[in-house]
């Protein structure tokens, strides 16, 4: 009787609360931004339900965030916003296997006083496996929209950091007012990478490999101790709280995989070496050099997300009297370019089911890179599988995502023309049943042929005043671009008297300006890559210092000459 009273008492509180929240939703929206309906029907479209499974003149209905009907002769709910899908191709929304999408890079940790010890503070050493990526996720991060507009709807987002930044989460690339609302699931991975702490232990691969083993072994011991204590604490030393070790428990129980950011072949082999020694479930993310690894990937049962970053196609010298040696060197360079772009088809042939990871790639290049991969032997269906069904399977979300079937999340791409045609454009991306609409350029504006429109170099020629902020304060100076007989050259000057630096690999295409330069840092040459968008006289860019896994923004404005 007492219990019943207690329950009733609680219900009295809960019931009004439920009423209150539903009331909130029913309130009118003074901003006028919320959609009039959450039911959509796209009719008369070509629906690619799954790779290789195509339905023409089909209709798809999305209701309250879920796909509720797919097929022909479907009753369209009266409340639906009907979209005419004539000439449209519909695909399941793409799933990114490993990225930083939605996460904001935290400020560099301050250098501690006791830097030079065998065990510097964990926050500086980069040993923070207990952190969760949601702490870094910002709803207004540009990357969410940048990835969504090329078709990605779910991202396995991992935190920024050093050796062990924390655990990753699956997020929906939707609009929301709070990061919690982006979360599809948390704790999807324990993220690990080969990034040392500047000037402190572990400083490089040597220390990282050893520290990883040490942490793992101690986590196993800590887990045993905690379990022993939990079963009966009598006569047993109380285990001290150790969040670093605790973060490994689900990995030790094989309930959570370790996602290793291993871009080159040696890093991938090192991650697999740790896997062989310690026995956890391993996923290689961001793999860029996998052509020699098929056997080892299979024997260690490793899952793989291949990088969507590709090297630039090498351009052979046009000099007519080039030596045989130069010709041979150019041939070998081309041979290796082919290895990079053909490895996807090779791994597929070897029976490895992989997804894609965008972590090192620029969103604006993703489609071009996918087309390059198709050109080099992976079929469109296989690419689509890597973007959808494979990723869903590897991330354990096949029941809710990856195909256009009833009951799945309303994540889909509506493309004018087949997505894998160079000229096709995305018209809508639905995420979690919400519509995002994009301008589709009129066909007549796109030039004939597959070439992108010629770039008008005049837009960038001249001097630009740049500004960026580093730990040493704000740096200013000029980038000067000149056209020397159709070759774009550039110089960087500095207001603080640093000698001028030549800019390398300058590229200006479709409004995107990128270049790199190196600076001398105490005898060590450090490369800085700048990528950004030119909009009139403004240049907004991001500079990245690969050597330190660090990026910072650069702004520049053009001198009015």
């Amino acid at each position, binding site marked *: 009787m007492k219990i019943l009273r207690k329950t009733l008492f609680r219900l009295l509180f809960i019931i009004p609360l439920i009423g209150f929240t539903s009331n909130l939703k029913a309130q009118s929206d003074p901003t006028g931004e919320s959609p009039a309906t959450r039911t959509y029907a796209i009719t008369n479209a070509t629906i690619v339900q799954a790779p290789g499974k195509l339905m023409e003149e089909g209709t798809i209905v999305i209701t309250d965030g879920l796909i509720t009907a797919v097929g022909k002769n479907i009753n369209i709910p009266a409340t639906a916003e009907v979209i005419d899908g004539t000439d449209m191709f519909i695909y399941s929304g793409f799933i990114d296997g490993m990225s930083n999408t939605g996460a904001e890079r935290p400020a*560099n940790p301050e250098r501690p006083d006791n830097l*030079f*010890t*065998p065990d510097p503070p964990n926050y500086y050493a980069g040993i923070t496996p207990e952190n969760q990526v949601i702490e870094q996720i910002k709803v207004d991060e540009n990357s969410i929209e940048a990835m969504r507009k090329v078709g990605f709807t779910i991202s396995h987002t991992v935190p920024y950091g050093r050796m062990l930044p924390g655990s990753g989460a699956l997020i929906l690339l939707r609009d929301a007012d709070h990061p919690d609302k982006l979360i599809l699931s948390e704790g999807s991975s324990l993220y690990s990478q080969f990034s040392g702490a*500047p*000037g402190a*232990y*572990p*400083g*490089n*691969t*040597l*220390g990282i*490999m*050893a520290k990883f*083993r*040490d942490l793992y*072994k101690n986590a196993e*011991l800590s887990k*045993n*101790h905690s379990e*022993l204590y939990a079963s*009966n604490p009598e006569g*047993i*030393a109380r285990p001290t709280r150790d969040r670093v070790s605790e973060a490994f428990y689900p990995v030790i129980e094989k309930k959570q995989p370790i996602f290793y950011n291993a871009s080159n*072949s*040696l890093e991938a*082999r*090192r991650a697999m*070496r740790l896997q*062989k*020694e310690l*026995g956890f479930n391993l996923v290689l993310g961001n793999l860029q050099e996998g052509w*020699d690894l098929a056997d*080892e990937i299979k024997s260690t049962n490793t899952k793989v997300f291949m990088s969507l970053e590709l*090297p630039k*196609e*090498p351009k052979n*010298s046009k000099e007519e009297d080039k030596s045989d040696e*130069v010709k041979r*060197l150019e041939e*070998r*360079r*081309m*041979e*290796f*370019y082919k290895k990079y772009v053909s490895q996807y088809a090779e791994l597929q042939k070897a029976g490895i089911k992989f997804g894609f990871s965008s972590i090192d790639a620029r969103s604006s290049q993703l489609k071009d890179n996918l087309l390059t991969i198709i050109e080099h032997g992976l079929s469109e269906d296989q690419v689509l599988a890597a973007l959808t069904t494979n990723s869903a399977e590897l991330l354990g979300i096949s029941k809710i995502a990856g195909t256009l079937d009833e009951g799945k999340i309303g994540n889909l791409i509506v493309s004018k023309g087949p997505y894998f045609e160079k000229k096709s454009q995305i018209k809508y991306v639905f995420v979690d049943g919400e519509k995002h609409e994009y301008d589709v350029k009129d066909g007549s504006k796109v030039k004939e042929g597959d070439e992108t429109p010629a770039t008008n170099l005049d837009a960038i020629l001249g001097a630009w005043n740049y500004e960026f902020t*580093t*730990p*040493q304060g704000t*740096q200013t100076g000029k980038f000067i671009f000149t056209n020397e007989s159709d070759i774009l050259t550039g110089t960087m000057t500095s207001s*603080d*008297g*640093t000698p001028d630096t030549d800019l390398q690999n300058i590229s200006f295409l479709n409004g995107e300006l990128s270049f790199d330069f190196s*600076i001398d*840092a*105490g005898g*060590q040459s*450090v490369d800085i890559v700048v990528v950004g968008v030119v909009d009139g006289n403004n240049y907004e860019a991001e500079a990245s*210092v690969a050597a330190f896994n660090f990026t910072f923004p650069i702004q520049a404005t053009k001198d009015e000459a």
Partner: protein
Amino acid sequence: MLFLCTSVLQAQTKKGDVLIKNGTVITITDGTLENTDVLVRNGKIDRIGKNLKAPNGVEEVDATGKFVMPGIIDAHSHIAGTSINEGTSQVTAEVSMEDVVDPLDVGIYRALAGGVTSIHLMHGSANVIGGQNETLKLRWGSTNPEDLRFEGAPRTIKFALGENPTRGGRSRGIQPQSRMGVEAMLRNTFNDAIKYRDAWNAYRSNKSSRKVAPEYSLRMETMVDILEGEVLVHCHSYRADEIYMLMKVFSDFGIEKLTFQHANEAYKVAPELAEFGASASVFSDWWAYKLEVYYSTAYNAAILTENGVTTSINSDSGELIRHLFHEAAKTQKYGDLSDNEALALITLNPAKQLGIDNRVGSLEKGKDADIAIFDNHPLSIYAVPQMTFVDGVKYFDIENDAADQRIYIDPESTVEDVQILYSNDHDRCMEGANVVNFTDLFNNK
């Protein structure tokens, strides 16, 4: 204690068969044999003798007028490593060069072209107790670091005395700032290891099912392994006083296996080294590159040899490694060593220092077929290596020596930018120790 070694499977590496006919065979352990054949079966030396017949399908190499010797072993190298120093703290016994082996380093092929078949890939000398080293066979062409491991070679570790580790200490305001600090740090660390061993031994002998394990430390595990003789110490050193100091420390802790690297003043304590049973791995005639290396002599290797110290000559360089046979020959000018003594400095002696002399270092039946063939006597200034075999597999042949030996090529590299000289050819010992941080990048002062 075998945590590192147990679960890593050894890849199957290639083994070759070959009959090397009618050469001058320099065995190192059994004299020099004229007009003699060496038969290799399945990577091992099967027979050494005259008028041997090639079994069916076994390739024959005509070595008439040529010199056949054991592959050269470099006891101090920093080629084939993607990192050299984890110099961020003064004791990093837990790190190991086996994790950073770079099979793609074209320096491996250059070494093969100098008759080298094995190297001791060493951690740098930025800290007092650096990382564990890795003994490699130069099986060029594989992309898998595991394929280069000298399977079964004992573990070794790098220690460092003198200016390198104290330089780091002084610049950071931490121990050690002097040679006294280095000794104290060594003794403290070994004492910590003894305590650690005791704690784990107590845990292991505890029969209770409810026992709680002490904290695990890969660093201390390695220190315990040193105390128990499972890890051979190779110590960067120059001065006689510090060399003598380390022998005293090791005597106190009962550690027997010790090789001094560089050891430019070892000749001053040669009898003491011999009595201890310590070895020395030295340069032929390189010194005066910093204060502690001024007091040196090109007679160092010869004096040590005459005093019964197992001595080797090493390269510590991607350039010198290509002509270690010339380096060995210098001991004939400076010290009148015999041919056999001089060649032992780059074959059998380094093999002993690395604990692999049961496998390599001489041409004997049953040993690994790691072999170099020269057109002249290897101690002649005119000697040019012709072929180099590891496990009976030919990895270098001067008659078939492609110009571009790179295994992986960056498609974004420029072709014009051909780099012939290796910019880091000296003293990679301190490589990576001067870590540049992001703040320094924009520091214009």
